[in-house]
């Protein structure tokens, strides 16, 4: 995506940098979970990855998936280096629309669909007509293994 396209789609996004090229194999949910090999989405299609048998398209289902990964405590976006955080977004219809993960340096990282990964300073920088709004932020203790992501 060009800088102009990003500015048009995410008008609140000011401080960011592209950190990896576009990749069709994985999406924002996958990247938030630390996976760059699979497209994470609740679906009956076997080529789409989901950790649960429940394939309902809902925020609750997404929350349950991240609960499985250890993100059990609801929190805010403040940087806590000892914790890894993920932010889940919903669109105007209340459906899950995006996920972002906070890095150890306090910045957030997002995979923009099939497009690039970006690093941005706050999760609400991606709020707007396209991704909706941040609905919930969850955290888990950061471990050495997770820091390898």
């Amino acid at each position, binding site marked *: *995506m060009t800088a102009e*396209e990003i500015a048009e*789609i995410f008008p609140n996004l000011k401080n960011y940098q592209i950190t990896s090229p*576009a990749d*069709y*194999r994985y*999406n*924002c*949910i996958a990247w938030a979970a630390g996976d760059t*090999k*699979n*497209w994470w*989405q609740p*679906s009956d*299609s*076997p*080529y*789409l*990855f989901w950790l649960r048998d429940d394939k309902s*398209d809902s925020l609750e289902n997404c929350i349950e998936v991240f609960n499985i990964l250890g993100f059990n405590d609801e929190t805010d976006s403040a940087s806590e280096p000892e914790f890894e955080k993920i932010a889940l977004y919903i*669109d105007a219809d209340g*459906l*899950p*629309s*995006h*996920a972002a993960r906070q890095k150890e340096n306090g910045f957030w990282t997002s*995979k*923009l*669909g*099939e*497009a690039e990964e970006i690093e941005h300073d706050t999760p609400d920088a991606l709020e707007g007509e*396209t991704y909706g709004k941040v609905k919930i932020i969850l955290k888990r203790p950061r471990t050495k293994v997770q820091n390898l992501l």
Partner: protein
Amino acid sequence: MSENLVIINGGDSEQFTFVQMLEATIRQGTNEIVLRNPKDNRSIKLKAKIEAETEIKPEFENLVKVWKKATHHYSFIRQKIVHPAYLRIIGMGEKVLPFILEELRERPSASWFPALEAISGNDAAQTAKSVDEAVQSWLSWGKRQSYLTV
């Protein structure tokens, strides 16, 4: 091109060189001619292919450009497949299948699978375990159905 090709037209067949066959096609003004090369058994529908290249392909490419710009950044396939340009591509029907498959081969995306299923009535990727596997499944299907050349 000097290989002999067989024209199959309404059950009758004649053998021509490629150049002769073209001339014969134009003179006869037939609507449906299948060209088959006996050497490798590849076949194409000549008139349909000309129409596809001059009319369908430009429209498809324009729709893809509009659709991708509007949806490339979405992470849920449901968000991508409701775009009017995507629905218009599906509406183009079987004629657009070769172009979708070429697009899938050059720029893979899981977003193409719903269109391929909707148009073809098949689910070539029903046993695929990843997006890459599903891409290969559909490309293999496309080759078997002669929508894609080898």
